């Protein structure tokens, strides 16, 4: 496998940074791939545009930032406007179905997936785990990272008292059947 670029965009507070960090950590430490995690965010801690990037390669990653992402995950309308145009032609687009309003698969997109991650998280008990629902879903539909590794990284990176909730969030996202 050659270089693969994944970008996750949303607004500050949605946990897109943690989502990217979990996947990159899983790839690096448990799937033993060469992976880099980067982030960008506006000056506001919450509400501003926020994105994280994961680049994975067979040998050491040179340029660490996504240039033409192969996989784009979008969790807000603003992030769609900002980041979607960067998606590689024929690349995979994954959206938060309730927060990104688009009419089906946009032109130029290869694979297209959608999931109501926030609603699922609310049903599980706390919308804060929407990002981990998304991590589970990304793991399933892209196969970029193995399930065991991703889950292990999730459980390592969340506070002890919410481990069970996050595990459920990951599994639910992984098992989600698209309509």
């Amino acid at each position, binding site marked *: 496998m050659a270089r693969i670029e994944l970008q996750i965009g949303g607004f500050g507070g949605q946990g897109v940074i943690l989502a990217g960090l979990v996947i*990159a950590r899983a790839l690096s430490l448990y799937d033993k791939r060469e992976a880099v995690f980067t982030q960008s965010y506006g000056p506001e801690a919450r509400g501003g545009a926020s994105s994280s990037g994961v680049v994975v390669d067979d040998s050491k990653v040179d340029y660490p930032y996504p240039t033409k992402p192969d996989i784009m995950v979008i969790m807000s309308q603003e992030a769609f406007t900002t980041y979607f145009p960067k998606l590689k032609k024929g690349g995979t687009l994954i959206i938060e179905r309730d927060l990104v309003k688009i009419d089906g698969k946009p032109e130029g997109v290869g694979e297209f997936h959608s999931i109501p991650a926030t609603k699922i998280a609310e049903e599980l008990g706390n919308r804060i785990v929407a990002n981990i629902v998304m991590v589970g879903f990304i793991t399933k539909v892209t196969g970029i990272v193995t399930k065991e590794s991703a889950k292990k990284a999730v459980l390592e990176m969340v506070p002890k008292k919410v481990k069970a909730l996050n595990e459920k969030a990951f599994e639910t996202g992984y098992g989600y059947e698209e309509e």
Partner: protein
Amino acid sequence: MKVEVLEGHHFLSGDVAVAEGAIAAGCRFFAGYPITPSSEVAERMSRRLPEVGGIFIQMEDELASMAALLGASWGGKKSMTATSGPGFSLMMENYGLGMMTETPCVIVNVQRAGPSTGLPTLVGQGDVMQARWGSHGPYETIALSPESPQECFDMAVRAFNFSEKYRIPVVVLMDESVGHLFERVSIPPKSEIEVIDRKISTDKKRHIYEPDDDLIPPMPPVGEGFGIHVTGLTHDERGYPVITAEAQEKLVRRLVDKIRVHADEIIDYEEFMTEDADVIVIAYGISARSARRAVIMAREKGIKAGMLRLKVIWPFPSKKLRELVEKASHFVVAEINNGQILVEVERAIRKEAVFVGKMGGEPHRPDEVLKGIEEAVK
């Protein structure tokens, strides 16, 4: 955690990795004033140092931070601070005092875009000449430039080793991109990490600034009966002020020479595809990662490109460049400033190089460096 050396594989940011490297090298004193994008270094040290019996102090400002570093070092601790542009500027006075008093310590500068407060959260590489000449007067410096969290760890260890061995403040010249990106860091067992400690005086009759043959004086421990006088004034081997041209020539000449005669042991670089290269890019830190990709892209287009990556920026590897100019016809310099290492490169190769500069805020896209390569061979 409570371990001295965080052995094993970890997924860390450059800022955290440089802190862990420092602790592995024996750093037990940190004084600093948090500033973006270096704050994570201070944050990590504030949690880790108490675990290993060290001291962390958040100071009132960067002037005091640097002063505390020098004091702690004379007190026998390996000391470090972390800062960024505006703080680095404030440290310059006592950086010079560290040079003059030959005080081992390490300054981590995670560069952001300046001048002044500039772009606090975004990348720059504009402090290269400041690390070299930022304090007044003649002296030689050592500065290292990591391109990854792994190198942040490794170079923190080396920075301490250099500072202890040559009795000099050493700068780890990081940049925001490298400080904030996460990558795997593999840390060997403690027994496999080479740690150098300063030479200590044992003879109480010996003058405190009397150098050995390597031009480096052993350092007397404070509070154990040695007659110690430490001053920024030009001094003799006893450490007493002597305000003459002769004393200045003798002391400052040695401060310069103690680094120059050991330059070959300090200088370090990576050559990437330079063997048959017709055009060579010189880069360091995050810019080197852009340049590496650009070199690969150029090769795909049939251009024989290569890269010389500076792992140690100061002392500058002039000799290596003079070697390369015998083989390669064209040179490109990529850095996030208005041409700082460019000056050194052109001085070494004695001709112009193509300059791919950015004023800061983002690293070079690989195609920007590629454009420079194409311009060079045109």
